[in-house]
């Protein structure tokens, strides 16, 4: 057995945003709320809502295909497809085998990863370790969510919060290391703060408890992730936290003391909370806009239901 560990990094990114954009007005009318109230509490102005012919798997295939094209990696070369999601129509089957099949990743293993909104950063760490240890050469990591059908349109606290979409990254061997060791944490005592139960599935959330946990525990986790990467938070080029709520993002940015020179992803304004898809969607957006460039250090921080969290510093592909 070889004990050589390989350097690993991101090779390509891609995302799928539903064409159907929904603003706050209709949601506000139904929940006796207002556009202003929703913006003040969440920062959200609009979100993507997937159509009936746009499933969790469909969006994952779209985002995954774009990431492979960006990386220049043929589907046949993919060793593993990991898909983070909590919004497949049922517990079985997972979505990743169908995604791998439709993309033509004939030689790949496939598995879904369930860690709520932190799913992508968990899956990314597993992908990086698989490549590092030579269990895999190229791993396609996807976050894909179709949560809007599970949200109660009459629940004033959650009806406006969620959106649909998918994001993906290709992980593979690189000359210089570009994915730091992950840091992770949980607060399982608060396991019932965000749940999807029942038939039909309905999402329920204690927003205040999650806000409290996120704003008090995430700054330390973010600092630890930077320590693992050997970088000071103020030397990051960008910070891409899970797009849960703009208020959480701003609070964590303030606690970390990030200077204005660090780009902060605020895609929640245009996409809502897309759970496990939010980090790769927001990262892809910064990359496509040219805000971040090859080699730039970016802190990713996933957190959510469980409660659970994971983060790492990546180098932009």
């Amino acid at each position, binding site marked *: 057995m070889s004990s050589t560990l390989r350097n690993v990094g991101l090779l390509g990114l891609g995302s799928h945003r539903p064409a159907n954009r929904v603003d706050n007005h209709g949601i506000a009318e139904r929940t006796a709320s207002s556009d202003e109230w929703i913006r003040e509490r969440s920062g959200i102005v609009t979100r993507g809502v997937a159509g009936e012919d746009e499933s969790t798997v469909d969006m994952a295939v779209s985002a995954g295909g774009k990431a492979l094209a960006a990386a220049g990696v043929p589907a046949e070369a993919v060793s593993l497809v990991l898909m983070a999601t909590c919004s497949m129509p049922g517990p079985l089957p997972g979505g990743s085998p169908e995604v791998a099949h439709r993309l033509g990743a004939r030689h790949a293993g496939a598995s879904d990863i369930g860690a709520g909104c932190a799913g992508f950063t968990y899956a990314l760490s597993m992908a990086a370790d698989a490549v590092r240890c030579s269990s895999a050469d190229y791993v396609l990591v996807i976050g894909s969510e179709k949560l809007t059908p599970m949200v109660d349109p009459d629940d004033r606290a959650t009806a406006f919060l969620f959106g649909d979409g998918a994001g993906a990254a290709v992980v593979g061997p690189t000359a210089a290391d570009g994915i730091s060791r992950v840091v992770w944490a949980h607060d399982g005592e608060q396991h019932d703060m965000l749940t999807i139960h029942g038939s039909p599935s309905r999402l329920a959330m204690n927003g205040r408890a999650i806000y409290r946990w996120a704003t*008090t525990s995430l700054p330390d986790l973010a600092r630890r992730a930077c320590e693992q990467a050997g970088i000071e938070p103020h030397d990051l080029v960008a910070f891409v936290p899970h797009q849960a709520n703009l208020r959480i993002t701003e*609070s964590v940015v303030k606690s970390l003391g990030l200077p204005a020179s660090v780009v902060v992803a605020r895609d929640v304004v245009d996409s809502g909370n897309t759970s496990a898809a939010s980090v790769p969607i927001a990262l892809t957006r910064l990359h496509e806009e040219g805000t971040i460039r090859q080699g730039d250090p970016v802190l990713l921080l996933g957190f959510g239901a469980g409660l659970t969290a994971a983060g790492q510093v990546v180098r932009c592909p």
Partner: protein
Amino acid sequence: MTASADTASRTELITGLAEVLHEVAGTPADKVVPEAGFEADLDIDSLTMVEVVVACEERWDVRIPDEALEGMRTVGDAVDYIAGARA
């Protein structure tokens, strides 16, 4: 605790709470009076209230659980709770 010590303690808590509210939400100190409602009078929404509570917990080394937050509608309610938790 004597009545005068109790009054002094409450005055100190209101002053401290005014400092917390100013730091977290920019609330003018003169508006922080016992009968002021957090949401109704001071424009503190539920998420800002969580930040206020966390700052109070650190300042006075007390624990204010979510259940207690439900009944905490005015500055006076908060002062009563914190005074009780410190006793």
